[in-house]
């Protein structure tokens, strides 16, 4: 990577979650980039989470795709673009516009998105453009539209701080939207009367700030909120004026809710009656209530109903669009909202307009496009199903990894394998999806590309470049425009800069709008693109902090709609099987294409895992830290067993991040059925029925190695560390010739001098290769999960004058304390350092530990864990002392 111009600080926006934090990036003289939170950005006011803080460590060009490739050969841009255009044109001419598709991403910038959408819907003439936002937001969009007549998030982040009750539904805010969580935690610390309720099957890290945790069965949310609606109506907690003047259809919703008294809700959800009653009571009596919801709501076969069940409660109490209240969807992607704004989903047209005859005509006129798509296209799941049936002849995938993130992921892989022409635009040379591409196009990445994104509170922020485009990488808008030109649409795609595109996007948003559409950027018309400050839309004349405070919605009668919701039957564990819930870890994001490059971010979790309740684990003879096979008819994956009572019995949890690039067999979405919400088409990614059993590993291994390995063990998972790679291994049968295995898997020279430790009875073998006191390879094997401090071992590659004994022993000598597993990623503080601060230095609060060790003093994402460690250590100390 090369810095752009002289070292100066660039204000940009984080490329990860939908909080959309402002980032200050300052290229340094040594080629690195200093990253800091932007104190002036209203999303984060200077805060960054662990992922954001480590952005500077993800910018290396290692693994980047730096030139176009056709098949497995390098190609020039002209040749590649010609081929893409030719194959798309041929498919369109021969099989019609609906035989081609674009599958995009919430990581695309609004300008990229706009051009892709315009090309497909305006000029190819098909709405077959869907994106990974379908996996993230579609049910919220559908719920918003059903209730408000528009896809509008009414409130903003400040509402979480102003609320007296914050209800978190299906959201591990602490890990998935850490900065928002920190804002909430800070507000709660300041106003201890403020209450937080967590509704989640798992006792996630977010439970740390919750006054009440309701562990529901999967998909119990609708029953809970339908019951709440009935409770509110029954006890008269109703804003009758608001309901009468600004809503419709309340009666039918309430009629259904009557059927859901407390005991039925408790029976259906599995939560304790008393806890539900407490929640209902708090909700009823707290005017300033914000209900935050995320993937636990959206990624469900009943996601849209869940959204409306929540919105119904806010409509009934009139708690919407005012300070400190409202339903609040927080998005998973940096630009899910921006994608929706341009219409970058198959069931939208453009600029918050749908496929109505007036909108089709209007957009066609605006774009001067003769061939505007007239009907919705294929949503993600349907798109890949059609591809599998041979109906999609050419697909272009941009900035996403559907082979890993889509449900029934192996079927998606098969569909891509069968597709006659697959184009993948990506930053990375090797991704699970790129593997199936006929043409790979090198896209510009964060820090290189320029454009805008919109966060979860409707705030448009600029992503600004501070690095030169590497190799032949190009911005996505340029690549798409070049293909559009080759398809004969030069006039419609004349863009020279992203600013040109943004200006057109602004113009379309306000084109014949007159207040009929929520999305309107008229106020940004003619703005200096380079200088646009973070701005909340709509911006007719000035930015809008909140929506619907005036009770006017975007339905034809301007009234919000109650949506009658029939709760689905609760999902109960069936005998012999588990309900699999999927989600995220604190320090990784999506399929790890960026976070997987940062050693610091792999220190927390560096392999795929399954969380299982101790009673279930005991019954199945699954010991902690062993490997489990998680399987069903679709697939089988191998994961590390984490035995924890954070997980309810009968349910298991696994993260969705691991791909074939990082683990032998950890693609969790291969287990998930391609079942979708009937309204939104969003797949139910958080629900699969699986069998769990010990994987039967006979031998475990852990290694650190300077060179990138080529692993052939039955199980492996790798992650970067400073100076090389770390990895976990397991075998169902021990290699017969260890030395040969080591040489082949770790690229050791034939004359490598391998030091060995062996304990034959126990079956433990350790191997080390050093060169002039520096480590080349350390491998530890054992019939039980290998006991070696990972935190310590992962520092070995950067050490000099290493003793072979220290390496082979797999632990520091007495004079070198082991810091323990990383808890605080920002300052790399280990658990042992923290417990020492508690036990020896007398730190008895999270703050004191922070002063002593710096842990938790930057992004704060680890504070829930520190609090847990503090409690556990204090408990064991008092036990020892009494």
């Amino acid at each position, binding site marked *: 990577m090369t810095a752009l111009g002289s070292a100066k600080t660039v204000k940009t926006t984080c490329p990860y979650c939908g909080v959309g934090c402002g980032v200050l990036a300052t290229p340094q003289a040594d080629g690195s980039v200093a990253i800091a939170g932007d104190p002036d950005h209203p999303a984060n006011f200077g805060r960054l989470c662990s992922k954001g803080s480590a952005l500077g460590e993800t910018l290396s060009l290692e693994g980047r795709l730096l030139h176009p490739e056709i098949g497995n050969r390098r190609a020039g841009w002209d040749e590649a673009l010609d081929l893409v255009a030719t194959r798309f044109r041929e498919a369109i001419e021969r099989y019609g516009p609906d035989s081609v598709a674009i599958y995009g991403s919430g990581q695309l910038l609004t300008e990229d998105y706009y051009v892709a959408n315009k090309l497909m819907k305006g000029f190819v003439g098909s709405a077959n453009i869907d994106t990974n936002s379908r996996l993230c937001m579609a049910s919220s969009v559908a719920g918003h539209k059903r209730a408000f007549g528009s896809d509008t998030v009414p409130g903003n982040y400040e509402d979480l701080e102003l609320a007296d009750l914050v209800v978190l539904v299906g959201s591990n805010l602490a890990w998935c939207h850490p900065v928002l969580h920190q804002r909430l935690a800070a507000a709660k610390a300041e106003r201890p009367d403020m209450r937080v309720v967590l509704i989640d099957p798992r006792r996630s890290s977010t439970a740390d700030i919750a006054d009440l945790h309701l562990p529901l069965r999967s998909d119990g949310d609708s029953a809970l909120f339908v019951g709440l609606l009935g409770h509110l109506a029954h006890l008269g907690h109703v804003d009758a004026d608001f309901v009468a003047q600004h809503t419709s259809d309340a009666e039918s919703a309430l009629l259904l809710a009557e059927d859901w008294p407390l005991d039925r809700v408790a029976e259906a959800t599995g939560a304790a009656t008393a806890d539900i009653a407490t929640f209902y009571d708090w909700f009823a009596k707290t005017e300033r209530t914000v209900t935050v919801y995320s993937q636990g709501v959206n990624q469900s076969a009943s996601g849209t109903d869940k959204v409306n069940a929540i919105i119904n409660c806010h409509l009934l109490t009139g708690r919407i669009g005012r300070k400190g209240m409202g339903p609040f969807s927080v998005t998973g992607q940096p630009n899910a909202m921006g994608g929706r704004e341009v219409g970058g989903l198959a069931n939208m047209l453009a600029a918050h307009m749908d496929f109505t005859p007036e909108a089709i005509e209007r957009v066609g006129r605006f774009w001067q496009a003769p061939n505007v798509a007239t009907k919705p296209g294929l949503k993600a799941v349907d798109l890949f199903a059609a591809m599998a049936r041979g109906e999609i002849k050419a697909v272009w995938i941009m900035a996403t990894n559907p082979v890993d993130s889509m449900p029934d992921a192996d079927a998606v892989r098969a569909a891509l394998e069968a597709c006659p022409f697959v184009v993948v635009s990506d930053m990375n040379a090797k991704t699970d999806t790129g593997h199936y591409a006929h043409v790979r196009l090198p896209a510009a990445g964060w820090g290189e590309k320029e454009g805008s994104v919109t966060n979860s509170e409707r705030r448009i922020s600029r992503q600004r470049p501070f690095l030169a485009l590497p190799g032949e990488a190009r911005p996505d808008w340029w690549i798409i425009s070049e293909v559009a030109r080759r398809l004969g649409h030069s006039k419609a795609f004349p863009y020279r800069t992203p600013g040109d595109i943004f200006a057109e996007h602004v113009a379309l948003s306000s084109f014949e709008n007159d207040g009929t559409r929520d999305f309107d950027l008229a106020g940004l018309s003619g703005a200096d693109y380079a200088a646009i400050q973070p701005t909340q839309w709509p911006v007719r004349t000035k930015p809008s902090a909140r929506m619907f405070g005036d009770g006017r919605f975007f339905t034809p009668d301007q009234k919000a709609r109650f949506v009658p919701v029939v709760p689905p039957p609760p999902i109960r564990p069936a005998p012999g099987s588990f309900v699999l819930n999927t989600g995220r870890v604190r320090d990784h994001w999506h399929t790890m294409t960026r976070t997987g490059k940062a050693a610091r971010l792999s220190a*927390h*979790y*560096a*392999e795929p*895992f399954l969380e299982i309740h101790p009673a279930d684990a005991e019954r199945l003879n699954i010991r*902690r*830290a062993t490997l489990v096979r998680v399987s069903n008819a679709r697939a089988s994956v191998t994961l*590390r067993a*984490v035995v*924890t009572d954070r997980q309810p019995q009968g349910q298991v949890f696994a993260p969705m991040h691991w791909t074939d690039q990082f683990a032998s067999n950890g693609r969790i979405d291969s287990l998930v059925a391609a079942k979708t919400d009937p309204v939104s088409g969003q797949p139910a990614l958080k629900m699969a029925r699986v069998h769990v059993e010990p994987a039967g590993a006979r031998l475990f291994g*852990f290694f650190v190695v300077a060179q990138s390995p080529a692993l052939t063990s039955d199980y492996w*998972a790798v*992650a970067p560390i400073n100076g090389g790679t*770390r990895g*976990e291994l397991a075998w169902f049968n021990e290699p017969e010739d260890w030395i040969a295995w080591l040489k082949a898997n770790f690229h050791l020279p034939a004359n490598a*001098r391998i*030091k*060995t*430790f*062996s*304990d*034959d*009875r*126990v079956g*433990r073998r350790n191997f*080390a290769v*050093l060169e002039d006191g520096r480590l080349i390879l350390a491998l530890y094997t*054992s019939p*039980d*999960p*290998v*006991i*070696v*401090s*990972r*935190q*310590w071992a992962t520092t070995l590659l950067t050490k000099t004058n290493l003793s*072979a*004994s*220290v390496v*082979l*022993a*797999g*632990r*520091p*000598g*007495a*004079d070198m*304390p*082991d810091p*323990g*597993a*990383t*808890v605080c990623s920002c300052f790399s503080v*280990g*658990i*042992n350092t923290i*417990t020492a601060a508690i036990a020896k230095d007398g730190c008895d609060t999270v703050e004191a530990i922070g002063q002593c060790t710096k842990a938790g003093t930057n992004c704060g994402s680890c504070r829930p*864990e520190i609090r847990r460690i503090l409690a556990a250590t204090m408990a064991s100390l008092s036990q020892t002392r009494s």
Partner: protein
Amino acid sequence: MSGRQKLVVVGAGMASGRALEHLFAEAPGRYDVTLFGAEPRGNYNRLMLSPVLAGEKSFEDIITHSAAWYASHGVTTHFGEHVTAIDRHRKVVISRSGETPYDTLVVATGSAPFVLPIAGKDLPGVLAFRDFDDVQKMIAAAAMPGSRAVVIGGGLLGLEAAAALRLRGMGVTVLHAADHLMNRQLDPVAGAMLQKAFEDRGIEVLCKAQTQAIIGHERAEAVVLEDGRICQADIVVMAVGIRPETRLATDAGIHVERGIVVDDQMRTSDPHILALGECVEHDGICYGLVAPLYDMAAVLAKTLADQPAAFRPLPTATQLKVTGISVFSAGDLETRDGQEDIVLRDEEDGIYKRLILRDDRIVGTVLYGETTDGPWFFDLLRESAATSDMRGTLIFGAAFQGSAPIDPYGGRCSVAG
């Protein structure tokens, strides 16, 4: 004359020196002590002759008990004076200066080098490596430019001599009858590493080498092997073992088997005569290492002081004293059923460690190249300590204990748990 009992000690070696130290501490003034020493000098640490030969220490450095020390404790000393007989009936010992009466006699005559019964063994230039006289002869021989030494015996003593002579510039060949060097203390792997280390110093090592004869006209000139090979030699150092020096006791009619038989209190068959050191046999075993000798010294002093004590043999450890080569060995190295080996092999750095366990307890160890933890292993061995809790890191030594990984999940995988 005082009324104190008369104690006569025959032999002024390490065992008797240590015994007298204990005695003067336990029962000062109880005995009039008379000491006979065959060598014409005070008591020195025989173990340290190797560094003297190597030129790394002077003789003065290794003196443990000087004439002045004995004098200060009222000991009458006869250095350089052999005791030729014991008259048990009259309770006197006989020497050049006449008869010396005793109430109690301590025999500490030590051992003599074992001499192979081969032709040429008595030729001038055939030396043992036992005392300071031998060292002086070797130093003189090494002073001749281009001179060569053949050391017969690749045990501790022979190897120390070989290394020292090489340091003094001699060409050196070690002839060893067994398959690998130090075969009583090392296993074949460590033996091979040791051999390589010696060869790296320019010392020729021939294992499975059966010596047939030493040949020469006026003095030793070469060693002939059974397979016909001939090794040129200006001196031949015979270091093939020791035998207890028991002649005095045998002649006096004391019970002697391989050594002078003693009981747990170090008494011989004659209740007025005690014995200790390399000359004795306890429970069928003769000892050649210093640790049990010192244990005997402590017991013998207690017996002399009329205090209860009993000699209990303990496992022994050995270390090779060759600068730059560390070898430590202790306990039982034989391969047996139920034995479990933990092995660390690092040929690149010349390190080899082996722990032999039975029922999770160390019964033997061989350390080559890195011996710092030898004493710790040896302690665990002697205490028969259970090691299951530290088995994974045991071989890496004491510094690696007690700092077990405390990652969540006990450092068992790469998840935060």
